[in-house]
Structure formats: C-alpha cells, structure tokens
C-alpha cells in the first residue's frame, strides 16, 4: 500500500513536471525591415522567423535566416545585402534570446504590452536590448507584434560613403508572428 502511494505521488510529481514547461513555437513568423534614406527606400521581408516561448520561465528565443529575406529594389541589392553588409555566409542568422520582464498570465486571454529583454545578435555583434512588444494570449496561441529599430552602426555594418544617401543607419523592423503551444 505504501509503495502504491509512492507510485501515485511519483506520478503526480511527474505530471506536474511535464505540464510545467509549456512551450509555444512558430516557424513562419514574418519580419520586415525598411531603410528610409533620402534617395532610396529599401524594403525586404522574410516569412521564416522561428520563435519559442517557455511560459513557465517567461523565456523566449527568436531566430531568422538572413538569406531568407526577399524584396529589395533589384537582385544585385540582395546579393550585396548578403555579401557585403550582413555577410550571411559568415553570420547566417540573426537571433534574439532572453526573458520577458513582466509576468504574463498565459492562462487568461487578453492583450498585454510587454518588454522583452535579451541579447540581439545581428552580423555577429551582440547587443543587449529591451524591445517593447504587443502580445495577445488567445488560449492556445500567443500573437506577437513589435516595431523597433536597429542601428547598423550598433552591429558593425559600415555604410560606404557612396551609398550614404541611399542607405539609412536606422533600420525599421516590424515583426508579426503567432506561436502555438507545442
């Protein structure tokens, strides 16, 4: 009988342990970036944003393959983006990993504005960032949308003098994604 009880408590523990880390993931979030320079407007986007949130710890991770960005004003621009600016052969991905500062109740539906604090790594240069995001808990998913800027100079991406009027240092980034419980 004692043993039986032990087994039961064990199960309970086990169940508690397995339900504890609820992970939400997505493979097809969208990322859009925009450079608004005096002479040229550059737009590119990708639908390959990968994201994961661990609801038990309030942790998150995001990852995007640099080569997946499409758009641009001409094919050569995309080639230069990969070859000369982001150097996607050397640094194939950009990542953002960290923790949500606010405590979020993932069990009640609703919209929240949260601050995500973490390490943003682009072009191999890591920056600690706090990025404000709107999130919506729908029950079985988390919708995230966020607007923020990235300075090329923060990530060691120099702008050659000849394209100074065609490329902004401040890049506007928009993210939209929906993460589902795994």
């Amino acid at each position, binding site marked *: 009988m004692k043993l039986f009880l*032990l087994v039961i408590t064990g199960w309970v523990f086990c169940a508690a342990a397995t339900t504890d880390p609820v992970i939400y993931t997505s493979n097809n979030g969208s990322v859009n970036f925009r450079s608004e320079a005096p002479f040229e407007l550059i737009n590119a986007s990708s639908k390959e944003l990968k994201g994961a949130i661990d609801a038990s710890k309030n942790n998150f991770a995001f990852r995007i*393959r640099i080569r997946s960005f499409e758009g641009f004003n001409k094919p050569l621009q995309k080639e230069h983006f*990969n070859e000369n600016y982001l150097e996607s052969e050397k640094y194939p991905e950009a990542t953002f990993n960290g923790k949500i500062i606010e405590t979020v109740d993932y069990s009640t539906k609703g919209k929240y504005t949260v601050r995500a604090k973490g390490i943003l790594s682009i072009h191999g240069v890591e920056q600690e960032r706090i990025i404000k995001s709107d999130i919506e808990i729908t029950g079985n998913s988390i919708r995230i949308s966020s607007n923020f800027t990235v300075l090329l100079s923060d990530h060691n991406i120099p702008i050659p003098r000849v394209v100074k009027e065609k490329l902004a240092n401040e890049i506007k980034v928009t993210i939209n994604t929906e993460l589902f419980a795994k």
Partner: protein
Amino acid sequence: MTQKLSLLALFVFIFAFAAKAQDIDLNKMLEEEQAKEEKGKVHYTEATFKTTRLINGHSIENIAPGIMDLKVSHRFGTLNSGAYEFFGLDNASMRLGFDFGITPRLMVGVGRSSYQKQFDGFLKYKILRQSTGKRTMPISMSVVSSTMVTSLKWSDPTRKNFFTSRMQFAHQLIIARKFSESTSLQLMPTIVHYNLVPKANDPNDVIAIGFGGRQKITKRISINAEYYFQVPGYKFSGTTDALSFGFDIETGGHVFQLHITNSRGMTERTFISETNGKWSKGDLLFGFNISRVFTIKKPRKK
C-alpha cells in the same frame, strides 16, 4: 509484485526528476530545428565572381532576369610605347556592350568593338549550379557561345569575297567552383573557329584552355587572374597566350575592373587566338571595364 512496484516507483521518480532538472534551452531548440530544415533545402552558391566577366573573358556569373548590364571596356596602348604615346594612353580601343538576363540560367549580349570594327553577340547558359544542402553539386558549369563579325574593308576587294569570311565563332565551357567566401577558380576549355584564317597554314580551329580565379582582399575588392593556354598545333603562328591580372572594385551598382593584359582585343577570338604581346618584353596594356546594371523589367511581386 512488490518488487515490480518498487521498481516502477523508482522509474517514475527518476523520470520526474529528469523532467524537472531539464532546463529547456529554447535557442538550442530553434537552432537544431533550423539545422534540420536546412538539410532539406538546396542552397545555391551565389557570387562566385563579382561580375559576368573575369577580365577579358567570361566568368561563371550570369545576370539576373530583367536586368540590363551596360559594359564599357577600354584597352589602352602598350605601356612600352614610351612617353610620346603617353605610355599607351593616347591609343585607346573600346568595346561597348549590352548584356541582358533572360532567365536565371540564360543571358545574351551584344557588343561593338572599335578594334577591327567588330560586332559580337553571345549566348550564355548555366548548365549546373554549385549547391549544398539537399542536393550537393561541387561545381557550376556554363556554356558560352559567341559569334564575331569583323566589318573592316576587304583587304583585297578585287577577288570574290563572302560575308561568311567575316565571321568567327567561339565556344566555351566554363567550369567553376567557389572554394570559400573569398576564393573562386574556373577552367575554360575553348574552341575558336575561323571561317577564313589569315595565313594558309593556320588552322581553322584554335583550341585553348583557360584558367582563371579571384581572391577577395576586402569585401568589395578582389584580385583576378586569367590565362588562356593555346594547345600547340591548334594555334596561329606568331601568337602568344593571353595572360591578364586585374582588380574588381565594386561600388553599389557599379563594378570597376582595372587590369593589365597582353591582349588588345576584347572579343574571344582577339584575345584567345590573336594575342601577340609578350609579358617579357613589356607589351602590356592597361585597361578597364565598367559595368552598370539597370532594371528594365521589375520582377513580379510575390
């Protein structure tokens, strides 16, 4: 029975602790997922060279569909012509060319050279693309076929002259590999056909094997070399092999190519089979190519 139960209890506990102790690394999880996905995709190698020409001849690169590439090339006179000719700068020949990308694999181009008043046109088709991932292909391969027409006045207008006598053809296979981000090499077996040869004992078909490569020294500058070895017995008498060295300098939509070469012409037949400058004697010419791309047809929005 009790033994079995106790074992079960032990298992359950271990399981529970294992699950508790496991700190899930989200970043690692995504990284692994990404790696798995990458394996299922084909990644084509891009930017083996900066532009569609290595120095005189073609590189493996094609231009994208809907893009026009305006190429302006100059070759000055030989450096050893002395101060009177301002080391060759007084004596320039040029080629004006327009290249068009038709599909991702096919491009065509036309050009006109002041040297021997030539018109030329070519087709370039990419047969193989170097790739990694799901399908691994170690090399890229293209075929280039060009036709040249000389429009100089007939040397002997009294005899019966045929238009076809003005024509030459060059066929090249280009085999290239990008070894690393900064190093690319290519091999170019070539045959140049002349309908009419200059001397009676010259062959109608000149066979040559080209070697070329580039080494990037910065993100936007590379050093290039190009050499065409003419197979003995299949070359014109008194000609030398074309050897050239140059820089590619890229600035936004332009690519500048500066080079030193021993050949004067900028069409396949003139530099592969009719080069007569000798490096040892200083018969070297300074030259440059300027490439500027224009979008003439916008790609459809997805």
